[in-house]
């Protein structure tokens, strides 16, 4: 709850990774609207269901338009909004459950269309809002309330998944590094095409993996995350796939296809070439000769 919405009764837990994501999104939208002379009201945030989707009610400062719909359907909704008004800057915020489980069927079509939206996916490896069930990115063997004997299915590997489905822009961020994350969200939003910024955003209540992600020398834990070397050419798809398959969690832009032509531009160019008839003319075409 904030001053703006006194009846709103949702809170993120202390230490939740989503706080960092919220900050990075606010900074990015503010910077883009100012620097690129984009009207603030052209920003739309489409939120999934889960802890992460509540971001849309929690943003500080000037308010973008929000759409907090049903579980798993952020991409189809964003498809409608962006295709309905291509002038809009459309961002999706969703979690690993919403995006990669119930909503996974929509990633492929959005990637093939090269839908010009940016998805910020907050991955905490667990269903937090329903209190700790296994999610697609929960690791093999992990005990949760729905895997009391340990998870017996493999985990989804998001970067391999996105790349194989044909996403044009894939980046990896960590909620504890909001500045770098903001840069990647900025690149994703500036990119003309389907962009995903996948964020490690730990759940301090049900899957507190901060130590595993950033390492803890005192406990003898090596960090799972590492920075993608600057020498990486993000337009190199094979190299991006190799990085996605390597152990550990790479941070940075894995892939940004060059010559990307987004759906709205393809559509508008096609539509302008087709002949348009008015309704009277169409009705007349059914006349009995």
């Amino acid at each position, binding site marked *: 709850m904030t001053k703006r919405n006194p009846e709103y009764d949702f809170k993120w837990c202390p230490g939740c990774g989503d706080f960092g994501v919220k900050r990075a999104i606010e900074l990015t939208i503010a910077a883009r609207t100012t620097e690129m002379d984009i009207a603030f009201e052209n920003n*739309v945030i489409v939120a999934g269901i889960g802890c992460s989707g509540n971001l849309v009610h929690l943003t500080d400062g000037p308010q973008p338009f*929000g759409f907090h719909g049903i579980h798993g359907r952020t991409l189809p909704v964003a498809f*409608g909004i962006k295709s*309905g008004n291509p002038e809009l800057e459309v961002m999706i915020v969703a979690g690993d459950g919403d995006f990669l489980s119930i909503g996974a069927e929509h990633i492929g*079509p959005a990637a093939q269309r090269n839908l010009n939206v940016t998805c910020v996916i907050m991955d905490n490896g667990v269903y937090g809002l329903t209190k700790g069930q296994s999610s697609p990115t929960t690791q093999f063997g992990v005990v949760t309330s729905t895997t009391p004997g340990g998870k017996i299915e493999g985990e989804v590997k998001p970067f391999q998944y996105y790349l194989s489905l044909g996403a044009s822009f894939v980046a990896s961020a960590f909620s504890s590094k909001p500045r770098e994350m903001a840069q990647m969200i900025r690149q994703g939003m500036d990119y003309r095409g389907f962009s995903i910024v996948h964020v490690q955003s730990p759940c301090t209540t049900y899957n507190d993996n901060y130590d595993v992600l950033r390492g803890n020398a005192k406990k003898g834990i090596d960090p799972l995350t590492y920075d993608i070397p600057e020498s990486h050419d993000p337009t190199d798809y094979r190299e991006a796939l190799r990085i996605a398959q390597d152990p550990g969690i790479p941070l940075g832009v894995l892939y940004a296809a060059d010559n990307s032509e987004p759906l709205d531009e393809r559509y508008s160019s096609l539509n302008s070439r087709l002949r348009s008839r008015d309704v009277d003319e169409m009705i007349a075409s059914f006349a009995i000769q």
Partner: protein
Amino acid sequence: MAATRDFVIRFAGEGGQGMVTASEALAAAAAQVGYHVMTFVTFPSQIMGGPTWSQCRVSVTPALSNGDTLDVLVAFNEEAYEVHKGELRDGGILVYDSAVFEVPDEDRSAMNVVALPYEELGKSTGNPRAANMVILGAVAQFVEWPEQYLEDFNVQRFTRGRPNDAEIVAANSMGLGLGRNAARESGFSLGELAAPDPPDYEQIIIKGNESFGLGALAGGVNFFVGYPISPATSILVFMEQNLRGEGTFVYQASSEIESISTIVGAGFAGKKAMTSTAGPGFSLMSEGLGMAWMMEIPCVIVDVQRGGPATGLPTKSEQSDLYMAMHPAHGDSQLPVIAPGTIEECFYAAMHALNWAERYQGPVIVLSDHMLSERVQNIRKPDPALVEVEARQIYTGTNGYKRYEGDSVSPMPLPGGPGAYVANASEHDDIGDTTHLPERHVLGTERRFGKLKLLEDTPYEARNTDNDVVILPWGGQKGPAHEAYERMMENGVPVGWYYTMFISPLNPKLLDELRSKKLVLVPELNYLGQLSSILRQHGVNAKSLTQYTGLPFKVADLVEKITAEVEAEVGSKVGV
């Protein structure tokens, strides 16, 4: 002998043999000279093959149903012959391809049998596709049509600017002649069909789904997303081919779940958004429809009903989605429903649905059905000017707006403009943020239901309403019911008529009138008697006459059943 007023011909065989083409060609030719026509098609859900039949009714007066019994049956194979021979009327004519099968001797006394090797005769013209022309030539001769009707049609239809036009026209003409000769030689006749009585208004000839598509365009649809499904696919195809121009968008979705979510997104962005589907796809849209209701976002969904639950009967006619159309989603909601009863009404239903969506700001359902969707009929040329196109109330003030304040429709902010809010599928406060306060859920629920009042002032048909017993058909069965009603009027059966395509919400004045009747009979194609049970909820003594065969009502059946109900009510025999 007085000239006949109409005739019904059925072409039955295997899908892909040209049955649909034959009946549509006959319809087009007859309409061209001023007859009224209606086709009816039923086929299995497969590309080629499977038992398929197509029917054409040609009438001097407007055709209201596809006809109960057959004057002519054209059987393309033995199986089709066996299945359909029972529907040939006494004195009817059977035409069959004697090169394909033979009619058993014991059957021959019951009907007029014409052996017509139309495939061979067709090929002999030099145009392998002329078999249909042979059949049409024979049919025209049975009703003693002037030769010129079909000859003119042939020239017009097949003069397409191709180098071999003249050869095709000549071959077809030869085919027509071969058919005529065969029919003459048979000596059978249905009697001369009375000369056409062309209407004094302009007409078009069109299918229901196309009529709906035109109406949607006239109503200002500018965003359409759909997924292929029988029998709604042709609406998607129509839109893909005709929705054009700046600010429009049409696309094939990856599923019906995507379709509904996408049009809700587009409605949020300010578009007049629409999708089309049939039962199974509509089921998948449940959650998204609840979302549109909750968020108060305009959109239109047409459900072209088919038969049965689950995959059911994909290419048959039923009216069993009414409950689902009104209450597709979990939780408290009731969606507006418009169910057109004729091809002409399909056009206006689309316009009204788009208007309703903008007026009350929410999802609107159009219930069509298989029989309406694919049949070809000549109708009065629709006039878009008869329905004023309505625009959404859009918010134009400053920021800090309370989008959901108040107990009825309020101006809607659009992204890109002032008044940013969150469209929220959860219960929300007046700026769209989630809340669980009991008083908010009461306010929100009452606001959403209250908006339906904006849709209650709708027209309805009422005739002979001083009778105690009335009929109230709905949707695509309006035609057969209307024909039955007219026949009962001729028979002197004391029964009244009510009809409206605006099914939900029902006009309170109509409900008042219905409540004053002793009995309201609702012919409907479902097992549960869906509309009559809804009427009973409103205190109307309604009773359904149900049928769930996957086929439309036969007029004679309706006349018999309704007459019996009236007799039971008045306690004595009625009519002639």
